[in-house]
């Protein structure tokens, strides 16, 4: 690494010094007589002193950098000598970068590259077989390529960006700054983010236990995009001697896919969530939540004027039970989750009170095999008399922590009276920085 660069420099220096006396010798040697020999001896002695001093300096430098013995890298000597020897910062050694001197691009300081954010890309390929006339999806699709950039901004903040590339367009899925250490124990986020409504809404597509999102999300909570908007989020832990309890409050602009629509600056949407968590044993824990969301909807807009001033209110409850025996945590686990949503949507033909839910279980059979089942049902937000129901069976295989292959059989009975039997197959793969696992 660093040491090999210095060794190379030393080698070049030594070669240089050896070359100089050799040349002198060649020029001086034919000169006859004692005087010439004496002059030659003096010159050699002088060169040796100089050479030893330079060598000592180089050695001192070498030991100061703490490098051990390493063979010189087989790079072209001239190029290496010319390149400024930027120090590889601690922690960056061996991180896939070049050994020794870092390359310099654009004349900037090469060391600045260690401040580059952690980057990763998660690919999500989805194929669908079978027929579905109500909600058709393409046979094969590179559904999402999520690019993430994450880094610490300064001692007070960190930033996270998630760009969702579809096959044709790009969407800022999330992009926010987090202030983790505000006074009063507040955790504040500012930017565009997925709202803390229930469990699924904050989850990015690639961490879901299914290849799709359940009907209740599709019908009542904004589908794949979910409730995601620009605004502020503040969360605080509520101290108590019993459980983990967190309250989150969020204020957004009020534009969120087809669920909220803001016609005036004052049409902000608000989200509130209370989450409780408790370890029952070291292997089993329970996670409970209640959420509320309110914002204006687009149903009262006539000729681009919001005449109706209609609103949508959502109430959600969720429960998750997890089991993972610590001694065999990489082999077996079980997660049961359920989420119910109640929607009250005002619209020109009156108020629609709809509800929906899903309940699912996922069991890990072996280190790389997971199986799951889900039942879901939901009314439609704009027509509470139309109810869709669905069932799914899943099998997931993980070649490694960084890729996943999933098959899902899904049977959906739509309110139109259509029943769709579909087979979804999904390939997911991630490259780049090792992200933390969601809990």
């Amino acid at each position, binding site marked *: 690494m660093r040491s090999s660069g210095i060794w190379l420099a030393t080698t070049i220096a030594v070669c240089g010094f050896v070359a100089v006396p050799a040349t002198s010798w060649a020029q001086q040697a034919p000169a006859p007589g004692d005087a010439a020999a004496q002059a030659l001896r003096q010159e050699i002695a002088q060169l040796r002193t100089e050479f030893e001093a330079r060598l000592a300096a180089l050695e001192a430098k070498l030991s100061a950098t703490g490098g051990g013995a390493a063979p010189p890298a087989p790079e072209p000597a001239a190029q290496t000598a010319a390149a400024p020897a930027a120090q590889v910062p601690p922690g960056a050694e*061996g991180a896939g970068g070049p050994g020794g001197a870092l390359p310099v691009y654009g004349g900037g300081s090469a060391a600045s590259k260690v401040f580059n954010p952690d980057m990763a890309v998660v690919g999500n390929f989805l194929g669908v077989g079978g027929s579905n006339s109500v909600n058709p999806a393409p046979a094969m699709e590179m559904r999402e390529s999520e690019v993430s950039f994450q880094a610490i901004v300064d001692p007070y903040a960190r930033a996270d960006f998630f760009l969702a590339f579809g096959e044709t367009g790009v969407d800022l899925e999330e992009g926010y700054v987090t202030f983790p250490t505000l006074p*009063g124990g507040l955790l504040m986020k500012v930017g565009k983010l997925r709202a803390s409504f229930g469990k699924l809404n904050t989850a990015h597509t690639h961490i879901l236990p299914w290849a799709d999102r359940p009907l209740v999300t599709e019908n009542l909570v904004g589908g794949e995009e979910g409730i995601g908007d620009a605004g502020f989020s503040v969360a605080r832990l509520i101290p108590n001697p019993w459980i983990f309890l967190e309250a989150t409050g969020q204020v957004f602009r009020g534009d969120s896919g087809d669920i909220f629509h803001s016609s005036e600056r004052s049409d902000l949407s608000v989200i509130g969530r209370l989450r409780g968590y408790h370890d029952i044993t070291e292997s089993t824990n329970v996670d409970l939540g209640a959420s509320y969301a309110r914002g204006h909807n687009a149903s009262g807009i006539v000729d681009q004027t919001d005449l109706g001033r209609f609103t949508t209110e959502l109430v959600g409850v969720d429960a998750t039970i997890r089991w993972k025996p610590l001694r065999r945590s990489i082999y077996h686990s079980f997660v049961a989750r359920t989420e119910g949503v109640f929607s009250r949507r005002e619209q020109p033909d009156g108020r629609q009170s709809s509800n929906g839910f899903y309940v699912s279980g996922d069991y890990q059979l072996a280190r790389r095999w997971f199986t799951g089942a889900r039942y879901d049902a939901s009314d439609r937000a704009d027509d509470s008399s139309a109810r869709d129901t669905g069932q799914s069976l899943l099998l997931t295989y993980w070649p490694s922590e960084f890729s996943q292959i999933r098959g899902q059989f899904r049977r959906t009975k739509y309110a139109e009276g259509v029943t769709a039997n579909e087979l979804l197959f999904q390939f997911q793969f991630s490259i780049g920085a090792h992200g933390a*696992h969601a809990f």
Partner: protein
Amino acid sequence: MKIKHIAVVLGVLCAVNSAPARAQGKLNVIATTEDLASIAQEIGGDRIAIDSIAKGYQDPHFVEAKPSFILKLQRADLLIVVGRELEIGWLPPLIQQSRNAKVQPGAGGYLDASGQVKILEIPQGQVTRAMGDVHPLGNPHYWLDPENGKGIARAISEKFSQLRPGDKAYFDQRLADFSNRLTEAEKRWLAAMAPYKGLKIVTYHRSFPNFTDRFGLDVVGYVEPRPGIPPSPSHTLDLIQEMKRQNVKVILVEPYFDLKTPNAIARDTGARVVVLAPSVGGVKEATTYFSLFDYDIATLVTAIKASGAK
């Protein structure tokens, strides 16, 4: 309208009372593993209150970021981490949600214990995930060498003294005492292992390089084809051939791995499967950093003798 709703949301947040009272006097220390907690306890004595996150018998790469750990971090004055990306899959979100400025990376209450230790297997040159789940900053299982234990203790003692300057003499004295006792114990451990110097063994994951390096064992293969990749039939067959060729009679396994493949290999090669504690708490006998080595060395020596190797 809008104001009212914002007020409601903020009201929920403000209704809760102020931050929990922090324990005064004692330094509140959280370590990510039981090994670090044990060493911190040795140095901190009665001047600290210590707690840890990962259990010694669980795979430290795959700890769940449970919200209950957030509560532990919220109250901490100091967080001690193994570092070298061991905790990369679960610690960052915990720190981020801790609401505790003291334990953020780079802050005074954050200590990476790997600063003064010998790190092995730092990859040279290009690293790709084709190699499995490699740690670009070197093998993070460095605490299984008593000499590194001293390095960890030094780093912890310096940090304690920095946070509680008034107790510096106390920590210095305990560090000296700990190091002396460890030196004495290490002589004993080295003597117990001396007859088996150069013994060829196989391990499941690369959890023991510092241990085998210190105690003179020669690791000739791994049950995992690559770090973090579960055993494959072809690799297992190759390993069995290699073990027969080199007459390897000992397979070291961490307590959190399935014993099916190691047992199958053992049946075929006549080797013994030894479940060693990679950490304090890994087995019930390993309650401290000292008893961790006591247990591992005694278990290993018994197994080597029984295997008839050497």
